């Protein structure tokens, strides 16, 4: 087996890209593949929900999850920290709700209050601000716990 090829196929499975895990597992693994697929999406949706709590209250959970799903599909995470995963979610929301000024203002509030996003500032400063808001509080980043279960819309 080529580990690199398997891992690329697994990433493809998680992100709904064409390709197949069938070369690497048998039919009994389908339930497990579903668990990983679900956990990947739920974790990112939870992360967005925590960062954009007020937007979620305004939209309601179902609409928020649909928006989160659109964002996750368009922007799979790259870095080792989820601290910056909310970057650009305001643009996803603007695309889905082009005429909704309330959504626009809520979606920008997590970055602007109370310390303000440091426009053009040093990366570290920005990271600190984000760390305080996301990594320190309110919830720790814990991908080693599994995520149950299964209600994110596909």
């Amino acid at each position, binding site marked *: *087996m*080529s*580990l*690199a090829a*398997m*891992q*690329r196929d*697994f*990433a493809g499975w*998680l*992100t709904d890209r064409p390709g197949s895990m069938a070369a*690497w*597992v*048998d039919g009994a*693994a389908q*339930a*497990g*593949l*579903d*668990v*990983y697929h679900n*956990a*990947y999406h739920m*974790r*990112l949706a939870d992360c967005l929900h925590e960062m954009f709590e007020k937007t979620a209250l305004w939209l309601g959970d179902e609409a928020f999850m649909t928006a989160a799903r659109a964002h996750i599909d368009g922007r*799979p*995470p*790259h*870095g*080792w*920290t*989820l*601290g910056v995963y909310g970057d650009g979610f305001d643009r996803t929301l603007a695309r889905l709700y082009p005429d909704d000024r309330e959504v626009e203002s809520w979606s920008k509030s997590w970055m602007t209050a109370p310390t303000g996003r440091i426009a053009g500032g040093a990366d*570290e400063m920005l*990271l*600190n*601000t984000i*760390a*305080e808001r996301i*990594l*320190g*509080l*309110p*919830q*720790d*980043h*814990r*991908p*080693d*716990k*599994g*995520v*149950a*279960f*299964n209600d994110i819309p596909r």
Partner: protein
Amino acid sequence: MTATPIASFDRFGLGLRTPHYQDFLTSTAPVDFVEVISENFMIDGGRPRHILDQIRERHPVALHGVSMSIGSADGLDRAYLARLKTLVDHVDPLFVSDHLCWTRIAGFNAHDLLPLPYTEEALDLVCANILQAQDVLERPMLIENPSTYLQFTADSMTEWQFLNAMCARTGCALLLDVNNIYVSAINHGFDPMTYLDGVPADRVRQIHLAGHSQGRDCLIDTHDQPVPPPVWALYAEACRRVGPVATMIERDDDIPPLADLLAELDMARAIATMDRRRAA
């Protein structure tokens, strides 16, 4: 490389979680050590680091990582390693641990602990990555057995055989998660006692305890409930085999008041001491 130079620390701790920050900062919680998620503190300065510094003044700290991705076919992320090394130098932790899994490939990061096939190819790669990490960190690591939800058709050895070879080749030690053994055993239909008998007991330096949930088709390692009876039973068996090692309880969802977790930790103490008395 054979023997691991990591000293044993035969004590009982808890994970540091945000709802308990105040408890840990304003009182001396009766724990012998505190485990923190490395990535939450791998950013210089700021409130998280300030909190960690205050905790460190009161307790020994274990650094538990979730994003090293020692199973990545791509190799390790050097910038990540450099940040972790800075944190390790700052904290002077009891242990530095991460998981037998992969999280990252070709620039994509799943933020989940994804399963590895247990093959010679994966073993070579994992060992090379661990050796590189230990080289940068200038200390041996603890590697934790994951909960898994599928197995690969290419598997040519069991997880415990993989762990044995990995420890022998790299000098790393083990963080044995008893709940993960139980969850994987149920999901894949092996006997958890066979697993316990198969791991190199003299390499275990820390034990994790946690709760899980029944998913639609599998047990899921959710860390959202008290440690259940079968996991306590397995812990007693683990104590019998590995002797006195650091034990801690992982609770990450539906987090109860600290007092409840301290009561669970007393249960762990009682089980471990019972075993130590029997051994004496």
